[in-house]
């Protein structure tokens, strides 16, 4: 029982953060629910290898990320779609910076749902990176460990993701006649 009790105290307390990260990844509540259950079962299995005193939330999100990518790979293999790696590479495409007149005013006109939807349109790695930095407040070093990349990659990926998100929202704003020309 000690192991379960410890797991409860150390890991289960992060369920909300893991759920939000799952939602950021898959964009659907039912899928996020299932993903979180699988993540915590895997975490329980591996709990013996978790180093006490280290960041358990980051550890759980790494398991979540790997679980999600495994699913994507399996789905794409079965459907013979574009390999995951090709989609991940898409992040390297340059994104032109959009000029906003008043960022805060424009952003307030979007609903939470629209903001999350725009985030969901980013490539997988950009999406998770930006989410972990901005929403979960993890350091670049922690995100680098979760994503198994160098810190420099996290820096550039965060910046590109932010610009891509801004571009998405600018596009929505144009549709909503919120852009400068229509105000």
């Amino acid at each position, binding site marked *: 029982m000690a192991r379960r009790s410890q797991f409860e105290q150390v890991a289960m307390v992060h369920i909300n953060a893991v759920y939000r990260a799952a939602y950021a990844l898959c964009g659907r509540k039912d899928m996020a629910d299932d993903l979180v259950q699988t993540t915590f079962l895997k975490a329980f299995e591996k709990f013996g290898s978790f180093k006490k005193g280290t960041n358990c939330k980051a550890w759980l999100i790494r398991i979540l990320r790997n679980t999600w990518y495994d699913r994507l790979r399996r789905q794409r293999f079965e459907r013979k779609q574009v390999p995951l790696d090709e989609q991940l590479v898409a992040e390297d495409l340059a994104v032109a910076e959009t000029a906003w007149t008043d960022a805060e005013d424009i952003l307030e006109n979007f609903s939470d749902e629209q903001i999350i939807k725009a985030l969901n349109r980013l490539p997988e790695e950009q999406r998770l990176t930006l989410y972990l930095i901005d929403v979960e407040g993890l350091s670049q070093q922690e995100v680098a460990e979760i994503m198994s990349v160098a810190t420099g990659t996290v820096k550039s990926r965060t910046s590109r993701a*932010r610009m891509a998100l801004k571009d998405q929202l600018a596009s929505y704003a144009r549709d909503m006649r919120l852009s400068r020309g229509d105000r």
Partner: protein
Amino acid sequence: MTHLTDEQFELILQGAQSESDHLADCRLCQKRLAERKALADRLRSAFASIEPDKGLAERIRHRIDVVPDQAEPGRVRSLLDFHAHWKGWTAAFSAAAAVIVLVPLIMYFSTTSSASAAQAALVKIHEHNLSENHHFYSEADPEKLAAYLKGKLGFNLRLPQPGRGLALRGCCVRHFQDLIVGSYVVDTPEGVMSVVVVTDTPQMLGITGKFEFGGQTYYKSSFARMHMVSVRIGDYSYCAVGEISHQYLTDLLSRLLP
């Protein structure tokens, strides 16, 4: 004038770098930083309202309860992914198929204590039947499905008569932990359900809500969001599992063909 780089903006946002003299003088960089800050704040606030439903933690605890406390890695993995067991299983199964190999689920779960663990296992089998399952045998024809199941299990399972909105989707016979369990999936007007066939009695599975219907004794219970109804037919318990009313599950079990 050299403006701040994207990386410098990110470092400032993270609080890892203080704002430079250039930033104090450059309106363009100030504007860019303000935009980035606004976007980060808005993203954070958008997720503030996202939280799991209240039952999620409980569902995870139930699933963890199925796992023996001193779990060996492989045992947990088999709960998560039955595919892991499939390799090398076929040969062993061929030998086992000669005899009836549906053994009591409760024997396994006696080590973990609980009837609720057995119910969690039934739910897991149903969930797995609905997931992308390479080993699911898709077949809507009851005769072909019955023949397949008999070939695998060595006895005739009772199936519902298709029609009236019912359609067989297929079946799955596979290792569950160290056991071999047969189940089939039925699409109904009220949703999809699995019928899992085991040798345990309903009471052993913790399905203890006894009631009578059409002169037959049935048992019902609920676990997580799932309802289940079980009936004893011969040496086996037929357990209908799904997010469907007890009444409908009972009605379907009452119409299983001999």
